[in-house]
């Protein structure tokens, strides 16, 4: 089974994020960047499927040239080869554009049986790229997977729902989005880290994908960004044995007891 995993490099979330004042875009250039932790679950699911079926995993990303680092991390976890679509025209690309670019890259790479993604990026969290990819590739979609297995008609997942879960199966080709917590992403081994340096990592431009300016034009725009009003600080007490009484009094005031 040939598997493609889509990943993104994002600013390290443990450092407070900032916007660029002129474009309202996330400041990415000079901040520490990492493989989106949400995508590590996707990489792990892809590697597990490949191990079970004897297939290869290709990681595909769209981003600036430095997103190589995130792809190297995926390679060091065990991914076989990687493709980065990088082009100045893609800066600030919206979700639909991202999906078009990833779909074009997957096609150019020769197609795939299974595409695995996270459910949303941790920095932008629009959360519609997996479904858009499926539509673009003419694939079935298995979304919000809490577990992924081969079997059934091709791939079978436990799909998160608002009230519980469903067991859903689909034939290939299929796009699977994997929720955080679906598995335990492996740590790259020292051998993996060393090996990643010699694994193939290609850079493609929009021209390489045959995409023009219109395909990647965005129809949306940020008008302004303002600080949210801060909440007034409330009453803070230390529990000296009477705090429970104060809570009960407060609940009574609010007429919920």
């Amino acid at each position, binding site marked *: 089974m040939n598997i493609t995993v889509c990943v993104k490099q994002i600013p390290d979330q443990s450092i*407070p*994020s900032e*916007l660029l004042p002129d474009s309202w875009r996330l400041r990415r250039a000079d901040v520490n960047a990492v493989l989106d932790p949400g995508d590590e679950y996707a990489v792990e699911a892809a590697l597990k499927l490949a191990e079970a079926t004897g297939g290869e995993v290709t990681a595909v990303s769209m981003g600036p040239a430095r997103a190589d680092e995130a792809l190297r991390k995926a390679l060091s976890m065990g991914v076989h080869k990687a493709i980065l679509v990088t082009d100045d025209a893609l800066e600030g690309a919206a*979700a*639909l554009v991202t*999906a078009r670019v990833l779909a074009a890259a997957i096609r150019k790479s020769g197609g795939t049986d299974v595409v695995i993604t996270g*459910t949303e990026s941790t920095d932008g*969290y*629009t*959360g*519609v790229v*997996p*479904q858009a990819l*499926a*539509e673009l590739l003419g694939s*079935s*979609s298995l*979304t919000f997977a809490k577990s992924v297995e081969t079997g059934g*008609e091709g791939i*079978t997942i436990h*799909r*998160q*729902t*608002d009230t*519980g*879960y*469903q*067991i*859903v*199966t*689909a034939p290939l080709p*299929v796009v699977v989005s994997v929720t955080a*917590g679906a598995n335990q992403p492996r740590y790259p081994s020292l051998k993996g880290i060393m090996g990643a340096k010699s694994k193939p990592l290609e850079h493609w431009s929009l021209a390489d994908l045959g995409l023009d300016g219109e395909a990647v034009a*965005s*129809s*949306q*725009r*940020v008008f*302004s*960004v*303002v*600080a*949210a009003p801060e*909440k007034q*600080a*409330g009453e*803070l007490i*230390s*529990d000296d044995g009477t*705090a*429970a*009484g*104060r*809570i*009960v009094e*407060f*609940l009574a005031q*609010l007429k*919920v*007891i």
Partner: protein
Amino acid sequence: MNAGPILVFGEVEDGRAAPVSLELASQARRLSDAVVVLAYGSSTEGVDKAFASAGASAVHLAEHPVADRLIGPFAAAAMASLVGAVSPRAILIGATYTGRDVAGRLAVRARLGVIANVIDLMDKDGRLVALNTIFGATQIVESGFTSSSPGIFLVRPKSFEVAAHEGDVAVSRLEPPTDVQDSARIIESHSETSTGPGLEEAPVVVSGGRGLGDASNFALLTELARLTHGSVGASRAVVDAGWVPYSMQVGQTGKTVKPTVYIACGISGAMQHTVGMKGAKNIIAINRDQDAPIFKLADLGVVGDCLTVLPKVIEEIKARQQQG
């Protein structure tokens, strides 16, 4: 400026209109007299009335043709046909699992941009402007689509009130779509049942985090919720640890709640958690660490051990209720 109607995805589950879809119909009515709803689900009998009284001026009923197929790809195809037919000014979809499936596929089919995590939508000089928050709701972003193209607004549940509306409604049936490229099949469905009011409707939400120390201590929260006619929520840390099911998770990747009172027990107040509960009218927090970020939001903060405070709270409420 496109003066077309506002098109709303009316998610129908178990024969009932999803609350978020009714919220969107009401907000669409505040912005336009022409509110077209696609009511899509396995059984849509009578849901036109619910959508009409929330604000719809036209309801298209579409029955899901095959029970064991996921709704999303089919509803996206039906939405795309309506986008073509009614040339809407904007498309509103609730950010549920199904809603996200619909939005992604519809974006491709109808070549529409998507603005997600919307919490408010307004008309500014004839242009629809969406608000969403970033960086743990510390910053508010105003965005919209360029004037020539409509777009999809993916709206978080509980962003709008449902207002009763009276007026004419045109009801029609839409044939199920046939050009769907999805072969996924549902083999089984499971629900994690909970007792008491649903988390999103409950007037009181008692939530627990890692500070409870052990899954068994959730019994204290269940008891407090029972006494306050509330519901029990949780942080992601304890959902990931397997203490409680995901359906109880509050936050960015869980539910958004806006109860009269939110009681956070042993929850640090990470921004991914607080975006889901910030809208509560009153917030009580119990945490051992006086510097816990949750106290910045709390109307009443108690620096203490929830395992000693909660049993006393329960005891005192019981004592009051016996007297009362």
